């Protein structure tokens, strides 16, 4: 399932595109498909993915990354083996995107503190949403007092959720990689294990929550 498209809108990635070399695509599609996304986080876990360094190139021999914030592929194009998700759930679009991933990936991995338990953004969970919004739009120190306050509320932007939720409280999650962010080599170990059909494991020596 793809995200519902509003009828009065045309998505850019549905417009005619320059075709890709079919041989290259065939080679890519022969690999294990991985889809990636960052939800409510700092994008750090995606960068930690790059911290695999040389191992990233090794991994790419076996896997193909389709949807990702490093590619311009904006929907998961084929059934994927692995969904790599950074960030927690903080607005209704995050929920739609997470559903999209759950429905198109065999295995979902919560990557990083925000995905695993909400992380730093979840620190707002001890405040009410109303108080958060008041702080920002009514009591904001930089608000020009000559004009009335504006509170965001618009069809083009998703509503913010009451709390920041860990992914596994919204959909079923198969594996968790803790850390803020997880070390690139830990991410590599997990992906490499999965790609080679080895069991998931992060031993104490390399497991980190910070």
């Amino acid at each position, binding site marked *: 399932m793809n995200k519902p498209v509003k009828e009065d809108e045309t998505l850019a990635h549905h417009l005619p595109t320059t075709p890709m070399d079919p041989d290259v695509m065939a080679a890519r599609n022969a690999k294990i498909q991985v889809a990636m996304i960052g939800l409510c986080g700092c994008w750090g876990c995606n960068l930690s993915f790059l911290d695999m360094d040389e191992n990233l190139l090794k991994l790419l021999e076996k896997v193909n990354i389709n949807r990702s914030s490093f590619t311009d592929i904006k929907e998961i194009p084929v059934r994927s083996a692995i969904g790599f998700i950074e960030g927690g759930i903080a607005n209704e679009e995050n929920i739609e995107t997470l559903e999209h991933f759950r429905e198109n990936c065999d295995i979902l991995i919560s990557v990083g503190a925000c995905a695993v338990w909400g992380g730093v953004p979840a620190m707002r969970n001890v405040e009410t949403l109303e108080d958060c*919004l008041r702080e920002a739009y009514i009591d904001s120190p930089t608000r020009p007092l000559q004009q009335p306050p504006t*509170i965001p509320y618009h069809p083009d932007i998703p509503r913010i959720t009451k709390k920041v*939720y860990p992914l596994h409280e919204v*959909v079923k999650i198969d594996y968790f990689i803790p850390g803020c962010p997880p070390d690139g080599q830990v991410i590599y170990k997990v992906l490499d294990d999965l790609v080679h059909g080895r069991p998931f494991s992060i031993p104490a020596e390399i497991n980190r929550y910070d």
Partner: protein
Amino acid sequence: MDQKLNDILLQNNSDKTRLINILWDIQRQYGYISREAVAQLSEALNLSPMDIAETISFYHFYRTKPFGEHTIYLCDSAIGRMNGYQAVRDALEQEAATGFGAVSADERFGLADTNCIGLSDQEPAMMVGDVVFTRLTPAKVASIMADLKAGKAPADIANPQGHDSHTLAYVESIVETGIQNEGAVLFQPGRDYKALLQSGLGQHPDEIIDDVTVSNIRGRGGAGFPTGLKWRLGREAEGAEKYIICNADEGEPGTFKDRVLLTRSPKDVLLGMIYGGYAIESRFGIIYLRAEYWYLKDYLERQIQDFRNDGLLGTDILGSGFDFDIRIQMGAGAYICGDETSLIESCEGKRGTPRIKPPYPIQQGYLGMPTIVNNVETYACISQIIEKGGRWFADIGTEDSTGTRLLSVSGDCARPGIYEIEWGMTLNEVLDMVGAKKPMAVQISGPSGECVSVAKDGDREICYSDLSCNGSLMIFDESRDLLDIVRQFMHFFVEESCGICTPCRAGGVDMRTKIERVIDGRACQQDLDECVEWGALMRATSRCGLGTTAAKPILTTLDKFPELYQAKLSEAKHALLASFDLEQAVGEYDYAFKALVEEASK
């Protein structure tokens, strides 16, 4: 220093182990325990003010702020809710012109909920001051409140004939004892206690213990530890002092037999305690009486005084050279104090948190000395065993469960009340006896016991080897919403957990969340599996009996009534988990936005 407070300290010889009494004296004197009072106490007792606050805040009935001239505690229990609790609650709020947890504007009434107060056969019931009012209806509430407003004292309303609070008449004018049958062991009339004790003290302590051992009586509190063995160990234990404690905390919802024993056969209990003291060579006995039974206090004091006057208590009892005396220690509102080590901590003036075992009370109990803690009924039985012999007792009941069992029967039946049955009676026989119509489930031994299915378990025998029972029997007929009752029980355990150990403190809350999720129709099979897994965790790893049994309301109903749970399970839509409430998650923004827009437009 405040003179009255000084007197209170003097009466308690400024002994920090008597803190529970000191705090009660202060609260009864001033209506609440003020900062200033705590400051003075900390001076006198060399405790930091916060150390004293530790104890105060642990107990339900202590108040650090004024809470109305009359503090009214309405019993909130499963049985009460089956018998009009809500209407009574509404009536109270209307009459007192305040909500629960609050004080009326004129500061005359404070309303609060409290857990089972041992009147399950005559609920709805409430505590006002030292007395209780039972079988409440909105009308009855109206008249009681009218009297209170008119300046009548609660005791005068509950006891219109003005009986002396030291008399049985007083107690029975306030509550019905509700004994429904005649049994083989207890409530024997016209006993000559002096003669009995005379002959008892004629025996050697070892003979007393042998008799108890031969009787094969097991602790009546519920755990069922062989009393003979406990006393033997108590006798062998070494200590400068030893103590005999009678556990009259009776906090298990649905239980009220001890209240009735203390009302009708208090001297049986005292006698049993004296035998205990004689057997293990202890000089002091303590009756730990739950605060909910305050209306029994003067009466029991009189019973103890009678014994002193007749030389059955005190020094050189009946010329035997044996000294023994008994004091009453009031509780202050904590279910956990039914646990013997929590009870001992409470007797020492501390928070009622269960101790780590070993050492066991028999080794290091009250004030670090060997201590025997037995249930009210156990002592009463022993008073009979020593008279008639262990064999006589052993012949009653079954092989492994000798003697009789007092049942506190409540819920959906024609004749709730107290029944003395021989062990070995089947559940169905009991249900017939009490006139239960269309019973569906029976909660045996209260929330910490098990919920059995009449259809599946009707033929099981009530005895230690089959259907073990601590005396509480709550009957639910087919019209009852069992899952909601389970929710109430889980809530009870969350409220009463002392919080000292992780599995009970944290696990109870998560288990309650699960049953609420089931009731909301947001649970899936995984939630039920987790209930079993988490329940096993609490049972195995908790520090005391509260935690190890707190999951049983869910576990036992899940076992006996799986269909009730299955019927509530939800099918997950799309990829979203059933337990995730999408509308609540995103809907909040709409409310917040509207609220802020209004706020800004002002």
